[in-house]
C-alpha cells in the first residue's frame, strides 16, 4: 500500500463550498511537492443536495475517488452528511465535523432530524473526532466561510500533509485584498478552535 498517501473526503450540502475547500487543499498539497488527484460533485446536487469532494494527496495515485474505509480524514460541514460519510472513514482515521445542522427539505417543510443524536453517533463511531461549534464559527467569521474554517482546523490538527501556513499561501494564490483577508481570518479561527 501507498504509505505516504493522504485521503481526505470533504462532505456537506450543495452551496457550502466543498469545491473551493478541495481546490485550496489541493493547491497547498502541490506546493509541498505532492501530486493531487480528486473528484467533485458538480451538477444538480449543487442546489442543496448532498455533495462530496474527494482529495487524494501523495504519489502514484490512480483513482480520483476514495473507496469506503479508506479516508484518513473526513471534513464534514454538516452532521447528517458527516454520518452518511462514516463508512468512508479508515479505522483510526479522524473526522472533523461542524455541529450545525442544515435540515433537508421535502414536502412542505424541513424533514427534521435530531442533530444531537447524529452528533452522538459520529462521536461514538469515530476513533478520532473533533467537533467544531457552528455557532462560534458563525460569530467569528460567518457561516459563509465555514469551509475555510474547517480547513484551518484540519491543518492545525496535523492530519493533512501540509501546515496552516501552506494553506494561507494557497489562499493568497487564489484571492487578493479583502476577500483574502476574510478567508485567512476564517482559516485562523478554525486553527484556534483546535488549539484552545
Amino acid at each position, binding site marked *: 500500500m501507498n504509505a505516504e498517501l493522504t485521503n481526505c473526503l470533504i462532505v456537506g450540502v450543495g452551496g457550502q463550498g466543498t469545491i473551493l475547500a478541495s481546490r485550496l487543499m*489541493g493547491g497547498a498539497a502541490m506546493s509541498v511537492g505532492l501530486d493531487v488527484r480528486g473528484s467533485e460533485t458538480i451538477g444538480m446536487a449543487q442546489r442543496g443536495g448532498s455533495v462530496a469532494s474527494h482529495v487524494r494527496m501523495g504519489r502514484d495515485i490512480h*483513482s*480520483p475517488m476514495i473507496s469506503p*474505509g479508506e479516508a484518513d480524514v473526513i471534513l464534514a460541514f454538516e452532521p447528517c452528511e458527516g454520518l452518511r460519510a462514516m463508512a468512508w*472513514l479508515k479505522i483510526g482515521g479522524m473526522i472533523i465535523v461542524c455541529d450545525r445542522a442544515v435540515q433537508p427539505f421535502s*414536502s*412542505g417543510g*424541513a424533514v427534521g432530524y435530531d442533530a444531537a443524536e447524529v452528533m452522538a453517533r459520529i462521536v461514538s463511531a469515530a476513533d478520532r473526532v473533533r467537533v467544531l461549534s457552528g455557532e462560534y464559527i458563525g460569530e467569528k467569521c460567518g457561516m459563509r466561510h465555514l469551509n475555510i474554517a474547517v480547513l484551518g482546523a484540519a491543518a492545525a490538527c496535523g492530519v493533512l500533509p501540509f501546515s496552516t501556513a501552506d494553506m494561507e499561501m494557497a489562499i493568497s494564490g487564489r484571492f487578493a485584498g479583502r476577500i483574502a483577508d476574510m478567508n485567512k481570518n476564517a482559516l485562523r479561527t478554525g486553527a484556534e478552535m483546535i488549539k484552545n
Partner: protein
Amino acid sequence: MTMRKKLLMGNEAIGLGALRAGVSMVCGYPGTPSSEVLETIAGERAEGVYVEWSVNEKSAMEVGAGAAIAGARALVTMKQVGLNVASDPLMSLNYVGVKGGMVVMTADDPGPISSQTEQDTRHFGRYAKLAVFDPSSPEEAYTMIADAFECSEKIGRPVLFRPTTRVCHSYASVAMLDPMPRATAEGFKKDGGRWVIFPRLACANHIKIEEGLTTLADEFSDYRGNELYGGGSRRGVASGGVSWSYVREALSGSDTECKLLKVATVPFPARLGEKFIEGLESILVVEELDPVIESELISLRGKLGAKVEIRGKLSGDMPNAGENTPGDVRNAVFRFLGKDAKAAVRPSESALKLPARPPVLCAGCPHRASFYAVKEATKGRKAVFSGDIGCYTLGNAMPLDMVDTCLCMGAGITMAQGLHRVEPDTVNFAFIGDSTFFHTGIPGVLNAVYNGADIIVSVLDNSTTAMTGGQPHPGTGVTATGRVTRKADIYGVLSALGADDIQRVDAFDLSASKFAVKRAMSLPGVKAIIFSGECAALSRGKKNGSCSIDTDKCAGCAVCVKNLGCPALAMENGHASIDEAACAGCGVCGQLCGFGAIA
C-alpha cells in the same frame, strides 16, 4: 528540468490541451459534465481563437463543420444527449469529410449524475462510423485531445472525444507541455461536388469510410493510449476510461500476476487485442455504460477460435447500468482473481435512518414564485404541467409539485400540444427556461401556432443558463467571451411566431402573476406568459438584504413554510423563522403571510 505542473479539472485539461493543439474554432452548448471545457478556453482569451456558445448543439456542430472544411482546427463541445440533437449534421459530415481537424467532445455521464440517459458515445461512434477517443484521466485527456486532432486531420473526418463525468470533474496535477506549432487555416477551396453531400457520392464515401476504419483499427494497436501489460498469466483484465484507474488502483501493491489491456479507442485495436487474448483462459472486462470492449473481445475470440472465457456485462458478472466505483471494481477484480476481497471497512452504523437530501430550487429562485402563482391560479381547473430541462425540473418536488412531464430539451411545448389533443378540456401549461426556449423551444411554438393548438407557454426567464452554471445565451446580450451583443427579445420572438396573446410579468409579484395566468386561461389559442426574474445565483451579492419574521405578528400558521418549500424558511418554536444567511430577500413568502409578519 522540473516540469511545470498545474492542478486541473479534467475539463480544464481538455480545454488547455485543445489550445495547445492549435484549435482556432470552439463552439458548443452547455451541458453537465461538459460545460467547463468551453469556459476554460473562453477564459484564456487566446489570440486567434474564436469561441462561442451556440444556441444549440446542432448549430454548434455546423459552425464547427464550416470552420473545419475551411481548414481550421475545430472543437465542438456538448454532453451526450446534446449529441442526439447534433447527430444529423455529424452523421453526414463524416461522409463529406473535413480538412482541418475536427474533434467533437461529447461528455458521457454514467450514473447518470446529471443526465436523462446513460447512453454510450463509444457506441454512437460505432453507429456513425467515427473514431472515438476515450481518456481515463485528466492527464491523459490533456495530451489525447491533441492526438484526436491529428487523427482527424489525417483521416480527413471528424472524430469523437468521449470523457465521462469522473474524468471531466476529477482533477489532477497535470504536467504542462509546450504549445504545438499551429498550422494556419488555408481557407475554403471550392472543389466541384467535394463539399456537397449527394446520394450518388454517398456509397463511394461509405466504402472509403469502411476502409479508413479498418486501417485505423490496425494503427490504433500501436497508439499510446491503448496499452498492454504483463504476460505469462492465464487471467486478464480489460478496461478503459476511468474504470481503468480503478483497476490500476485495485492491483497497485498487489503481487498478483494478471495481464492487463487498456482500450482507449473505437475502432478497437484488433492486433493488440489478439496479443492480449493469446494464452488467456479467462478475461474480466471492466467498463461503464455499454459493453463495447467486451463485445469486441467476444467477436475477436470468435475470429481467433480461442477458448477464453469472457466475463463482463453480457455474462452478467458486471452491472449493466449505473457507474462503477473504485470499491466495486476492486471487489470484482479480486473475486475474478480468487483473492480475498475483504477491505478494512468499518462495521456499518446501526440503522439510524438519515433523511435523503434531494436538490431544491435556491432560496430566492424566481421559478418557485412562478410555480406557486400558477398553482394557485389553476386551483379547481384540470391542468397538466409540462416541464423541460433546467433548474425548473426541480419544481417537480413537493410542496410545489408543478412538473408533470419532462423529456428532453424543448419537449415541454410540443408535448403539451399532444396532451391537449387527447384531452381538450384540460389546461395545458408548458414551462420552459429562457436558454431552453432559444435552444429548441421556438419550433414548438411555431408548430402550435401553425396547427392551432390551445396551450399556455410559460417562459421562465431568469436571464441565464442556470443549471449548468450560469452561461450566457442569446437573451442575455453577452457572448461566451463577454462581448456585448444584440439581445434577443423573447417577447418579440413570440410575437413574430404569431402567439395569440403574450404577457410579461415580474416573477416575484404573485398577484400580477396569478392575474396573468387567469387571463391566459380565459383566452383560446397559443398564449404566452414571460415570467421575468433574475436567477438568485446571479443576484446573490448585489441583493437587497434579507427578510425577517416579526415573531409578535407571526401566528404560527406555517402557510409560508408549507407552500413554498424555500430552504431559507423553517418553523422554529411555534413560529416561522428565516435563515438570514440563506435568504435572498425575494419577498415572496411575505406575500403569502396573512398577518403581515414578514418584511
